[in-house]
């Protein structure tokens, strides 16, 4: 079947099998390998991407279900070599160890901050409930999201001046 959607700002049109999962479309058809297949059971969050701005687990979304919608992967954050505020904060706070969960964490955090730009630490922990870090590096991940939120506040304050 023909599916038309937008991925990281680019319109795409592809002939896919109805059963093709979004994560496989992104990785194998488009070569976008940031979203990882971790548990493959909607648990670990390593495959998290944004669908019309909301975080979803792309191992549990059919490509067909994303038709007409906007998909954002970690490759679509930032601008060229410049990192998005969340990516920069993960680097600054060392919010990663082995890195496997990181693209999903960054996308979940990006979605979380879009919904709640000033979360408390508890809200960050609850907001990342669907993303597992098997290195157990949660403290720095939470610190990174809080730092990104604080950086966002500074940016919007400066933009307002």
């Amino acid at each position: 079947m023909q599916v038309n959607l937008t991925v990281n700002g680019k319109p795409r049109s592809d002939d896919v099998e109805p059963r093709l999962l979004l994560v496989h479309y992104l990785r194998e058809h488009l070569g976008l390998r940031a979203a990882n297949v971790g548990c493959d059971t909607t648990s670990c969050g390593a495959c998290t991407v944004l669908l019309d701005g909301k975080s979803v687990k792309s191992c549990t979304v059919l490509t067909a279900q994303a038709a007409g919608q906007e998909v954002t992967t970690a490759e679509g954050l930032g601008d060229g070599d410049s990192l998005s505020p969340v990516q920069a904060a993960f680097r600054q706070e060392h919010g990663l160890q082995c890195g496997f969960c990181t693209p999903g964490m960054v996308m979940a955090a990006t979605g979380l901050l879009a919904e709640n730009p000033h979360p408390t630490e508890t809200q960050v922990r609850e907001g990342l409930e669907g993303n597992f870090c098997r290195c157990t590096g949660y403290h720095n991940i939470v610190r990174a999201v809080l730092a990104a939120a604080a950086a966002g506040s500074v940016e919007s304050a400066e933009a307002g001046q």
Partner: protein
Amino acid sequence: MIPAPFDYLTATSAAHALDLLGEHGEDAKLLAGGHSLLPMMKLRLAAPEVLIDLRRVTELSGISSDGDELVIGAMTRHAELAASALVRDGAPLLAHAAAQVGDPQIRHRGTIGGSLAHADPAADLPMALVALGGSVELRGPAGIRTVAADDFFTGYFETVLGPDELLAAVRVPSAPGQPWGYQKFTRRANDWAIVGAAATGGRIALANMGPVPVRALAAERAAAGGASAAEAAQLAAEGTSPGEDIHADRAFRQHLARVLTRRALEHERG
């Protein structure tokens, strides 16, 4: 894990979805958020030949007031339910239950209609619907019928929903200010309840204490007769025969039902 092949159809209206269901019969499944069905298809526990996607059927979305009831479209996603001012005001137990489902990503996709039609006895929304004494509107070729929550669930993952029907909407009483209590015992933060208990308006419902979400009728009667939360909760497991699995045996589930019912009643009574 890859689902078995299927044909994918997009319904443009509820009537169109019913036509497609009539055409394809039991080979077809309705697709809402897909967060129960797709995992089952990936495990090959389900292999429908046709999926009828409801995502473009806008008439199945939205939350409104109808007299003393809230009417919630079946395609309402858990995150929308949890954030809805109407639901938070009129049926706060339901908004709270929606916020307990899975994790944020799952709540962005999963729908109330899908969760109820899937009928997992361990799930949040079936228990919440039974606790609230709500009902579901089932739409079929012969029209719409309304089924009370107590009569909707018939067994593990089974409901009265016919193969030619779709769950169109959910109705719950709107009772602003009515106290409620909600308890869910899990081993992992985003898991299904090993046992759950929800209490409001004199009704108590339990999750995962049998093949369907069940009422704790003996505890309800005791509470109505003036028993304390602790006294009423002692009767919460009466008449239940919960399943056993790696998480809990029958005696432990019955113990949890008593403890969680006491906590739910204490929360309800402030």
